[in-house]
């Protein structure tokens, strides 16, 4: 914790020095202290708070739906080879299509601003969870599975009692990756699709006035949101997978 603060402070100092060195135009790239001051002022800006809550809604909702789709699907595909085989070409075809390009198409199908962005977020956040789930199921110790099998447990019980718990940390890592991606896509979608609220919509307004300081201040808040979400997830990981962390002994 202390070290993290030290590291962050060091980086800030360097950035500030660069900003003041005159290498870049302060209007185009204001010094970090100006940005932080602007970020601080945004806390009391009711308009910005409404934008944050819009972003949170889309981000959280999209992520939740993505996990609810991807984790069961990953388990299903991880355990039903025939289905996996058939669906794989489609998955691999769809995965590299940028969700932001889909915005106009989704817009047409969905007369609901948060729904549009949420759909785009789901599309992007599904993949890491899906893939990590499939990888995780593959990485289960065969001796552990054989143990349950020898006690006469069926494949479903083995899935529930061995494969899922031992794949869970892996799935969770996928969720962490997806969380970051979902936030990124939320903001990107707001930037590209506009809409009534959202940090991205706020950024469009800031850009219009060439207010780089406000724009970057909003970016700082995005970083803070992502940071907080990750901190929560890491805690949850430590708590839920104590056996995993302890057994492997950490570094």
């Amino acid at each position, binding site marked *: 914790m202390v070290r993290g603060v030290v590291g962050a402070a060091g980086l800030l100092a360097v950035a500030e020095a660069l900003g003041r060195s005159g290498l870049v135009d302060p209007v185009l790239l204001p010094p970090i202290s100006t940005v932080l001051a602007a970020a601080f002022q945004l806390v009391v800006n009711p308009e910005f708070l409404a934008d944050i809550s819009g972003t949170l809604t889309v981000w959280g909702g999209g992520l939740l739906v993505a996990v609810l789709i991807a984790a069961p699907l990953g388990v299903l595909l991880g355990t039903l080879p025939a289905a996996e085989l058939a669906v794989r070409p489609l998955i691999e075809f769809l995965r590299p299509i940028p969700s932001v390009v889909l*915005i106009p*198409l989704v817009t*047409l199908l969905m*007369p*609901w601003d948060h729904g549009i962005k949420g759909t785009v977020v789901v599309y992007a956040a599904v993949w890491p969870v899906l893939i990590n789930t499939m990888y995780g199921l593959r990485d289960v110790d065969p001796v552990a599975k054989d143990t349950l099998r020898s006690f006469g447990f069926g494949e479903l019980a083995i899935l529930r009692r061995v494969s899922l718990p031992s794949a869970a940390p892996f799935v969770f890592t996928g969720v962490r990756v997806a969380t970051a991606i979902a936030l990124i896509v939320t903001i990107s979608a707001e930037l590209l699709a506009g809409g009534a609220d959202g940090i991205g919509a706020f950024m469009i*307004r800031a850009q219009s006035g060439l207010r780089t300081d406000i724009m970057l201040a909003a970016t700082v808040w995005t970083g803070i949101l992502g940071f907080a979400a990750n901190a929560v997830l890491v805690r949850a990981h430590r708590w839920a997978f104590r056996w995993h962390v302890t057994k492997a002994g950490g570094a």
Partner: protein
Amino acid sequence: GSNTTSTSSTGGGSGLEKTEISVAVSAIADHSAIYIAQERGFFKEEGLTVKPEITPSTIATLPKLLNGSLDIAAIAYFGVIHAQEEKTGDFRVVADAYQAKENIFEIVVPKDSKIQDVKGLEGKRVSIASLGSIGQLAVGASLKTAGLDPNKSVNWVPLPFPAAPAALQSGSIDAAWLTEPFLTNVQKESGARVIADTMTGSMADFPIAGWVGTAEWAKKYPKTMAAFQRAILKGQQIASSDRKAVEKVLPNYTQIKPDVAAVMNLGTFPTSLSAARIQRVADLMLEYGFLKGKFDVAPLLVPLPQ
């Protein structure tokens, strides 16, 4: 966003088919009339509740109009005509929004650039807000006037206006086509130099954007449309005559600083809708190869109520 299901109730007294409408605008001065009308209660007088929404691009707006999540949007004529020709949808212009004037769409180069005039742009990188848009048309017209081929002589770089000043200063691009307030800003802050005003000659007083809905919408909600037209017209009127009124509403939906707002150049806010004037857009688009054939704009225009 807007909620279509709850808005179909008929308005009290006024007999409107719909009392609550969503309208999309860009975060620039061009569409300030709607905020003026909003602020002065013109919509309320008509029994309308308007929910403005900021939109970043035409392609993000069209689908929302088509699926009914937006009622009206301020869209560039260039885009409307193009979409109409491509049969993306059937659109109606319900009122004029913005028209060019001198010194609001200009080509700028960095302070110490060797480029002196439009001719000097040959082989250079020129940024425009997006490809296949009014920007390409306007710069193209200037190139043509200077005796260059608009399609081959420069490298087009699509770059949103806000990103252009930085790109210009870092030398990533050689010239930028900009509008206000970026134009004022970039001259003030980094000493960029204007080499040409693109809204001259064939482009003088060029129509820029209108208030647009779909044909289906116009047919379904004629009274609502008329109410909107009456209110926005009053807004346009004030915008065109009272610069201070425009400056006053800018902070509602942009982050333009007051000092910039006070000095930036503004275009015209037309109060009538003239087919002859807007036909110029289609004709010029055809001339520069942005349309496949002759296009008549008259069917797109909805007469203004008296």
